[in-house]
């Protein structure tokens, strides 16, 4: 029996898991239209390599990963590209983003798939496969998996996250119940990449069926399935590591700093599909629950509009309005039903005023410190709230604002119903924007100073060049002329040269003339002589010159 540890704080919200975990998962049918945002992951936006009108096959690459931290995007089904344009995406800003819109042709025809044996591949090749296969973490943050697993550091523990602590969500639960063997094969690939000393799967004890299924699949593989107590947010990466290993990720650090890598079980499943079947990440399991007739889990193509999925779950009950993408604690509240499912969407909750009553009006903070007792990151949320509210960002940073995982436990327990997480998000984005501004100001300063230096240098070089030229000219003139006054002698020499040239030059057209031409020349010469004489008779030298 493994010794488990506890993290600070945590809360017990109503689970609401049974609603959607009773039915087995089902395959969602092809939708009318798929919208695929180019940015579904953390990092650089993918670059579209298709145009409107292109025909694509299922699994065909339609946007490639740009830069190190990025992920590729593939066509979830065969069909025609309608557009590559701005479209509404699930994001708190409600701003549009570049998306590829695909009209399915209904054939669902696969591109050629190449199943691989991962043992024959080098780690670098395998990581490149993950990158090109568009694999990102399916726990919610959608961090590109190849980056997470490309560490050269020796890894003590690989942790697979099957905690799924947020209320309502049951995707990982169903996946582990139904596809345990495939998950374990995916974990084998991840173990091959990292060669960890031990591999643990952490599952909250409110999922007994998933635990037993995984235990069965993990028999004789060296992977240990650990049942952890149900407490929100055990599914947080740092919290799960604390519970399983007792080690804490340092402030501002990553699990890598303590020799641990943590990945979601659904990600392991996606890795298995990619390596063993050659299928890139084009679908995922999504829980449709909340105010719907028959809550259920569906295997959904990325890009499917959420309203079509709600219809699959029997449709929204009357008096429902709006959706939550993700769980009620950390999820994104949206109103637009045409928004697509993206790689990070694990759950769609249809809201109704009965299930999710509007938050009571906020009251002033009474400094009860219940938030500090609940905070799983062991922060002082009340202090952070004051600093964020007063826009005292330096102080907020000093109080480790960036260790906040935005889990919402503080706001959940707050008796004054303060929107605490909103304040932290505001402060974080202000600080990040300011850091970015500062970086660009520093870059501008460097460029400005370099320019001044360059101008100065160029001036210097020009002056030097001129001086050298003058010096060289002086030398040559000294050698050529006598030690007389140099300028005078230079002029004299020039005049002499011109004279010599004039003497040497002869008219070109006075040789080999025909007799007729010679006669003409003689006639002209005679006239000229006559004119000369006439001019002399007038006796004005000035005019003579003119007549000449």
């Amino acid at each position, binding site marked *: 029996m493994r010794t488990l540890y506890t993290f600070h704080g945590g809360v017990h919200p109503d689970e609401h898991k049974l609603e959607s975990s009773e039915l087995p998962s089902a395959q969602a049918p092809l939708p009318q239209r798929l919208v695929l945002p180019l940015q579904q992951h953390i990092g650089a936006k993918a670059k579209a390599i298709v145009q409107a009108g292109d025909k694509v096959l299922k699994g065909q690459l339609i946007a490639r990963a740009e830069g190190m931290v990025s992920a590729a995007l593939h066509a979830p089904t065969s069909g025609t590209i309608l557009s590559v344009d701005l479209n509404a995406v699930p994001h708190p800003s409600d701003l549009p983003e570049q998306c590829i819109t695909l009209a399915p042709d209904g054939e669902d025809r696969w591109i050629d798939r190449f199943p691989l044996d991962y043992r024959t591949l080098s780690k670098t090749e395998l990581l490149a496969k993950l990158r090109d296969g568009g694999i990102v973490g399916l726990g919610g943050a959608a961090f590109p998996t190849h980056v997470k697993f490309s560490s050269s550091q020796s890894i003590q523990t690989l942790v697979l996250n099957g905690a799924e602590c947020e209320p309502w969500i049951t995707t990982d639960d169903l996946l582990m119940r139904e596809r345990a063997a495939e998950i374990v094969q995916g974990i084998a690939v991840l173990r091959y990449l990292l060669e960890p000393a031990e591999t643990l799967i952490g599952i909250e004890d409110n999922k007994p069926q998933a635990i037993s299924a995984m235990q069965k699949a993990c028999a004789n593989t060296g992977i240990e399935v650990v049942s952890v107590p149900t407490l929100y947010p055990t599914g947080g990466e740092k919290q799960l590591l604390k519970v399983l290993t007792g080690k804490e990720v340092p402030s501002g650090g990553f699990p890598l700093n303590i020799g641990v890598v943590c990945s979601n079980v659904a990600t392991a499943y996606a890795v298995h599909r990619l390596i063993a079947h050659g299928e890139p990440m084009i679908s995922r399991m999504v829980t449709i629950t909340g105010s719907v007739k028959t809550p259920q889990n569906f295997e959904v193509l990325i890009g499917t509009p959420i309203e079509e999925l709600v219809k699959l779950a029997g449709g929204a009950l009357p008096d429902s309005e709006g959706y939550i993408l993700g769980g009620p604690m950390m999820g994104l509240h949206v109103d637009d039903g045409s928004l697509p499912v993206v790689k990070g969407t694990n759950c769609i909750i249809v809201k109704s005023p009965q299930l999710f009553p509007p938050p009571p009006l906020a009251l002033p903070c009474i400094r009860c410190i219940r938030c500090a007792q609940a905070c799983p990151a062991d922060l002082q949320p009340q202090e952070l709230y004051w600093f964020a509210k007063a826009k005292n960002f330096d102080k907020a940073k000093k109080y480790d604002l960036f260790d906040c995982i935005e889990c919402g436990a503080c706001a959940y327990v707050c008796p004054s119903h303060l929107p605490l997480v909103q304040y932290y998000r505001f402060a974080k*984005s202000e600080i990040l924007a300011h850091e970015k*501004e500062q970086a660009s100001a520093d870059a*501008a300063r460097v460029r400005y100073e370099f320019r001044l230096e360059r101008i100065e240098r160029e001036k210097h070089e020009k002056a030097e060049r001129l001086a050298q030229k003058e010096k060289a000219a002086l030398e040559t003139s000294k050698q050529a002329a006598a030690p007389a006054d140099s300028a005078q002698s230079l002029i004299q020499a020039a005049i002499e040269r011109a004279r010599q040239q004039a003497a040497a030059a002869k008219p070109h057209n006075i040789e080999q003339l025909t007799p007729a031409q010679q006669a003409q020349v003689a006639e002209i010469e005679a006239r000229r002589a006559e004119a000369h004489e006439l001019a002399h008779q007038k006796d004005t030298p000035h005019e003579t010159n003119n007549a000449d």
Partner: protein
Amino acid sequence: MLDAILVMSGIAIALGAVLGFSAIKFKVEGNPLVEKIDAILPQIQCGQCGYPGCKPYATAIAAGEADINKCPPGGEEGIRKLAALLGVEFKPFGAGTVPKPKAVAFIDENICIGCTLCLQACPVDAISGAAKQMHTIITSECTGCELCVAPCPVDCISMVILPQTIQNWKWQYPVYTLVQAK
């Protein structure tokens, strides 16, 4: 009596030597206050303060020759930081100086004649091009100082306000009303 004088002068010489040594050893090049002020200024190098760049303005502030409210790109936050650094009162912008949203220059390449005048005006070398060749702005390096707009003989440079995208979007300050508890 003599002993006391000797002791005192000995101490004086020893301390003087220490001071002299540290004056050479720990000499500070330049005015550190200028560097600190310069770090707050936004480095747009636009010259709207009346000085030919951010560093000259910082030097003038440090010397007490310039006011701290002459930098519109730095915004009121910039003034606040300068006031805090220098220990003086916050001073609002004078009439007529309004901070503008961040913009970058844009060259209409159909009109550009390749005269290089804007290249010479750009304080951060953010325009690429050569004589009689089309010029273009390196957007990522442009500080939006507008110094290239005036020299252009064919008026092909305009300032484009950066649109809000998901990448530069920021969370808003939470707005809610406090109510009296019943």
